[in-house]
Each structure stands twice: as structure tokens, then as C-alpha cells.
């Protein structure tokens, strides 16, 4: 099993969510985060003083998938990202186990 972590811009969320849901992935977790972007910074000014801003709003998506579905999930994320501006990164990490609390089901049956 794999945990796919994707980091995208906030305005990409609707398209990516739709792409994932169309491909059958309905267990999505979103978190609001701040992140740096290469070569991107802003100057904020407040009452005469300046501040260099390098952290920008992003959204972190997490989906747990079975190994045979990883390709489909990545494809769905890619098409959603392209639909909405074309940026973002996905990390695929190993998932040792997962448990459905309440029923006790474990492993590949859960995802």
C-alpha cells in the first residue's frame, strides 16, 4: 500500500478533487499549509517597513491507495493539476498498514 502526498496551490483543489472522485478515489484528506516555492517571494510593506515573504498558502492532499491503483491515482492527480494551472508535486511513500476503525478491517481491503 502507498500513501500519496500531493502539494498543490489552493485554487487547484476543485479540479483535482473532481478528477480524483471521477477515478474512484474518495478517501481524500486535505490540510492547509504554508510552503516555499523556488524563486518566489513577495515584498510586504506596513507603515514604512518591509518584509520579505517566502511562505505561501498551499494545500496538502493525502490519499492512501493499494499498490495496483497508484498509477491511476497519479494520473488523476496529474489531469486535475493540468486542468487547473499545471503545478504541484506528489510524493509516494510506503504505507505499512492501515486499519478501519470501527470494523477492524486491515490492509488492502480497506483502501
Amino acid at each position, binding site marked *: 500500500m502507498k500513501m500519496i502526498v500531493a502539494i498543490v496551490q489552493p485554487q487547484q483543489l476543485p479540479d483535482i478533487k473532481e478528477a480524483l472522485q471521477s477515478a474512484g478515489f474518495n478517501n481524500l484528506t486535505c490540510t492547509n499549509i504554508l510552503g516555499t516555492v523556488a524563486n518566489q517571494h513577495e515584498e510586504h510593506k506596513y507603515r514604512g517597513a518591509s518584509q520579505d515573504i517566502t511562505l505561501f*498558502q498551499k494545500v496538502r492532499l493525502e490519499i492512501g491507495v493499494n499498490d495496483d491503483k497508484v498509477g491511476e491515482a497519479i494520473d488523476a492527480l496529474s489531469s486535475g493539476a493540468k486542468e487547473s494551472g499545471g503545478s504541484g508535486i506528489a510524493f509516494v511513500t510506503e504505507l505499512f498498514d492501515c486499519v478501519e476503525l470501527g470494523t477492524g478491517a486491515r490492509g488492502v481491503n480497506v483502501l
Partner: protein
Amino acid sequence: MYRRAFIVVLAILLSISPDAFAQDATTGVEAPAFNALDTFWVIFAAILVFFMQAGFGLVEAGLVRAKNAGNILMKNLMDFSLASLAFLAVGYAVMWGQGNSFIGTEGWFLIGVETPVEGVPLYAFWLFQAAFAGAAATIVAGGVAERMKFSAYLYYSIVISALIYPIVGHWVWGGGWLAELGFYDFAGSTVVHGVGGVAALVGSMMLGPRIGKFDKNGRPKVISGHSMPLAALGVFILWLGWFGFNAGSTLSLSDPYIVSLIVINTTVAAAAGAVVAMIVAWIKFGKPDVSIAFNGVLAGLVGITAPCAAVTPLSAVAIGAIAGVLVVFGLLLLDRLRIDDPVGAISVHGFCGIWGTLAVGLWGLESLGAPGDGLFVGGGLSVLGIQAVGTIACLGFVAATMWITFKAIDVASGLRVSRDAELRGLDVREHGMESYAGFQIFVTD
């Protein structure tokens, strides 16, 4: 380049001689005696109407996204500040100066003009009128919110308060051709709210909808306001200020009956608008929508603004109730036409402003000062007809002149912010700062 502009502006300001204000006719030997109570009344009402700017600011800020809150508050502050200065320099003369049926031509910088209100000094009357001009100007900020360039909005504020609003005001109140025709708009359903609403409509259409407002199939998507508490407080402040807006338009306390009639009409119309808008939304959408109920208050208030001195309180309830229906269907109509109105300015001020003006022809009573009895109270269609003519004339004029104004601004400096700025937020891109520094603003969809 900015230093040169600064020096030019400084030179202009220094060349305005302070002596120019010393020869005011209203403090000369021939001045009539002033009535202290009436003067207090006009100033008090002016202050209430002025405070409506806080109401507008809070409603607009609350109903837009947090990343744009500071920008809309700046637009609100600046349109009032620029309107005050433009109305001092040019607008008052255009609206109230001696001239012809179309426009006033005397009284620039308030020089050489006398108070048109017996017993009330010019400057007090000016303050009351300037507050009205500011109200008309600030309505537009809501309709064009979240995507109009700040500089474009500044230029627009000067034009509407120096020329467009005062010309309409001259026609209706300043002795112009609509006054001669018998058109009646007691406190400004058309002159202030209709003007603001139509200007907002033109601006919104020319800008186009916000990014993400309509999906691929043209269906509207939710872009929620970030603070219902701010919006709610704003509506109550507007309701409070409206007592000055409507009752203060008597410009005198010599007739306590009419002043009292106006305040009861104002409140019951607002209440009816709130309740009916809530019920309509509850039926149509399944839930009592908070922001629609608050828009309903404003709809009732706008609707009663023209007829407030000439109808009975029960008629005021009917007028407010129908405004509550109109505002909900107005929102739906604009969505269907793919016109994006972030705070409901067009529905509240435009549609209900027209309604209030026409309502004079339905329930107005000649015994209370209407030009004739309305259709539902024993009269015929003549008042309604004149109200319709005046409404079409004023709002057609505003639509045309605002189209020209926004077009000129677009050509000269651009009307809409860049896509990147719209996504990042106008607070950061236009003003270089965040209104909610230290907060993490959540994306919810």
C-alpha cells in the same frame, strides 16, 4: 514621476486662497436668521448618514473573502473621502447651484451659493448632501468587489461624485427637469440607490465575473463571505443610519408628524424585507439563509426610501415585503445572466431602488405630499407613469455615463486586476499587506 506629480498637486493646493471662503453669503449682513433646532437636526441626520459608511464597509468586508477585506475597506474609505472633496469642489454646484434644467453651473467650491434650506446654514446642508453622495458612490464597491483595480476605483469615485450623481440629483432635487415634471423621490431610492445599483451593474458586467464564480456550464459556484458577524453588524449600522437618511430629508423638525411617520415607515419596511426575504429563501433554498435575510433588511430600506414620507405604515410593510421578494429573485436573475455581484449590491440597491420609486405611484398619498394619489389608494396611473419615466431617464443616463467612464478608465489604466493578483488576493497585491496578518486563512474548496 511621482515626485513631479506631488509637486504639481502641492502647488495647486497652495494656490487655493483661504480668503476664497471668507466671503460666504450666508454669514453676510443680509443672512436670514438661522433656526438652531433645524440646523441641529440636519447635522445630526448628516452624521447618521455618514456613519452608514461604516455600515457599508462592514457589509462589504464581511461578504468578500478575507484576502480582499482590506482592499474593499480602502475603496470604501477612499470613495467617501474623494466624494467629499469632489462634492465640495464641483458636485454641490452641479447638483444644487443655479443653472438650467439639466445641470447647476454656479457654486464651485461653495462660493457664491446660498443655502437652499431656510434657517439651515449652507455648510450643514452641504454635509448632509455630501454624506448622500458618499453613499451612492460606495454602493458600487460591492458590485465590483474582488477584481477591480484600486486605481480604477479611485478614478471612478471622483467621476461619480463630481458629475454623474450630482446631475441626477439636480434633475430630481436641485430644481431640474424631473422636479418640474412632478417626479417624486423623497430620500433617494433612485437618486442614490438606483444610481449606485446601476453603476455597480455596469461595472460588474464590464469587469466580468470573478475567477471561479461560474463553472464550465455557467452554473454559479459558492464564493462565501468570510465574516457573517461583520456583515450583520454592518446591516444594523446601515439600518440605524437610515433613520437619518430618510427622516433627515425633511431638513426640518417643524412638522413632527411627518418625521415620525418617516421613522415608523423606515423600520417596518426593513423588518418586512428581512422576514419576507428569509421566508422566500427558506422556501426556495430549503434553509433560512443568513446573508439573504440581512440583504432583505437593506432591500426593505431601499424600497421605502422614496415613498417614506407619503405612505401609511401598513403600505410601508407591503413595500418592504415586496422588496424582500424582489431581492431574492434579483440574486437568482443575476446568477442566470452570469453577472457576478459579490455582495448583492445590484439586487438590493438597483432593483429595490426602482421598486421604491415606482411604489410612490402605487401607495403614495397626495395628502402627505405625493404628487397625486397612487394606484392602490384611489388614484390612477399618472403618478406611476411619471415615476417610471423619471426612473428610466435617471438610470439610463447613469448606465450610459458609467459605461463611458469605465471604458475610459479601462483604456487609460486598466479596470481589472491580473489573474495572479485576483488569486493571491488584492490586499497583498494592491496594498502590499494582509488584513489578517497572523491568521491562517483556510481554503475550504
